[in-house]
């Protein structure tokens, strides 16, 4: 009976739960059979936006697809959010950042392989939010994992003009 949800609610749940914008194709791909047409999806999104008139959020279209975003006018309160999440200062945070900086472009899988532990998605999200890293593409391998790289903002923050100003990988033995 879970098969009987209305299209607009399925789209709503997907936009809400996705951590990145969803293209029309992404949305169509949620369905195994009876895939909705792009027009049907667009219509459902319009419907959703109408129903969000009295909410604080809306569906908007950005370069890579649709996402749910908070409407303007809430910054006063929201700027106080997430001020200090413990993950930001952790060893895991630094190590993840450092691996992206030195080995870029890397996938999460690469980071996991190097560190030997699962990557905390929160850390990646934080790094993207600071605009220290960004997704520069997708690797051609199963699941098309995202390729992460550092940004100019990252260099600015550490007062570097280019990555080659980073401390050299150093005199660690070459195995």
């Amino acid at each position, binding site marked *: 009976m879970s098969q009987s949800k209305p299209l607009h609610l399925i789209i709503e749940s997907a936009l809400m739960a996705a951590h*990145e914008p969803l293209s029309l194709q992404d949305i169509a791909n949620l369905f195994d059979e009876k895939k909705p047409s792009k027009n049907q999806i667009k219509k459902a999104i319009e419907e959703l936006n109408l129903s969000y008139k009295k909410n604080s959020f809306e569906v908007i279209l950005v370069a890579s697809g649709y*996402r749910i975003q908070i409407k303007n006018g809430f910054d006063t309160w929201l700027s106080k959010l997430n001020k200090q999440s413990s993950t930001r200062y952790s060893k895991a945070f*630094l190590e993840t950042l450092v691996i992206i900086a030195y080995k*870029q472009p890397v996938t999460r899988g690469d980071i996991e392989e190097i560190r030997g532990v699962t990557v905390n998605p929160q850390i990646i999200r934080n790094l993207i939010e600071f605009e220290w890293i960004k997704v520069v593409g997708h690797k051609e391998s199963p699941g098309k994992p995202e390729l992460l*790289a550092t940004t100019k903002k990252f260099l600015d923050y550490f007062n570097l003009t280019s990555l080659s100003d980073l401390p050299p990988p150093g005199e660690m033995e*070459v195995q």
Partner: protein
Amino acid sequence: MLDTNKNNLIILNGTTITDIPDDLFIPPDALRVILEQFEGPLDLLLYLIKKQNIDVVDIPILPITNQYVEYINLMQQMHFELASDYLVMASTLAEIKSKMLVPNENDEDEEDDPRANLIKRLMEYQKYKELSLKLDDAPRLNRDTFVVSGILAKFERKDDAPSIDLSQLELAFQEVLRRAEIFASHNIQSETLSVRERMSLILDSIKENGTIKFIDCFTHKEGKMGAIVTFLAILEMVKESLIDIIQNEDYSMIYLQSSAS
């Protein structure tokens, strides 16, 4: 393969069992798989007990010990690297067995059942094993529950970033390197950071523009070194299957595009 002792009669809860359970016969190549299924000697023991439909509190030490030891022997015959925990358990079982065979005449107390400690451990372990199965079924984030998050609206986030200085980064990197051989000898020489950086820049440009012209990756200003860096970056990306190089006919424009597109 397995040294079956069919002549040994085993008496369980008053019932005579003449056959070793079928699941003791293991094709040799399946042995590794089977051992990996067990989380240790207690798990293996529980399995042996369960297969016979016996209560843990009634654990028949003799047959179970025999079966257990057969497993261990088999594994050793196969030159299987056996965790020492399994051997410790084997000797514990042997000890209990010998105590059972030579009953202490001084006391008939149930309290002094030589199996008592083992039974207690088995029950304790069984409890957590079952709980872990329950936990595995519990509603779990991103499998059963989906949280609404990651909505990156355009907020001004002030002094949001943590304060970190460069030396911390360096330390973190040293630490990482100590644990992993990321800069193995084959790439430490050829692949400088400026190449990795250039790879990111070109990928980003491909992401923004779809397909880009090969020549647009080079800028006059950077001179020969810049051109070399760019060229190495492109080669490296082709090698890592991150991008494809396209040229429709000889001498025509060369384009770069993402392999994932």
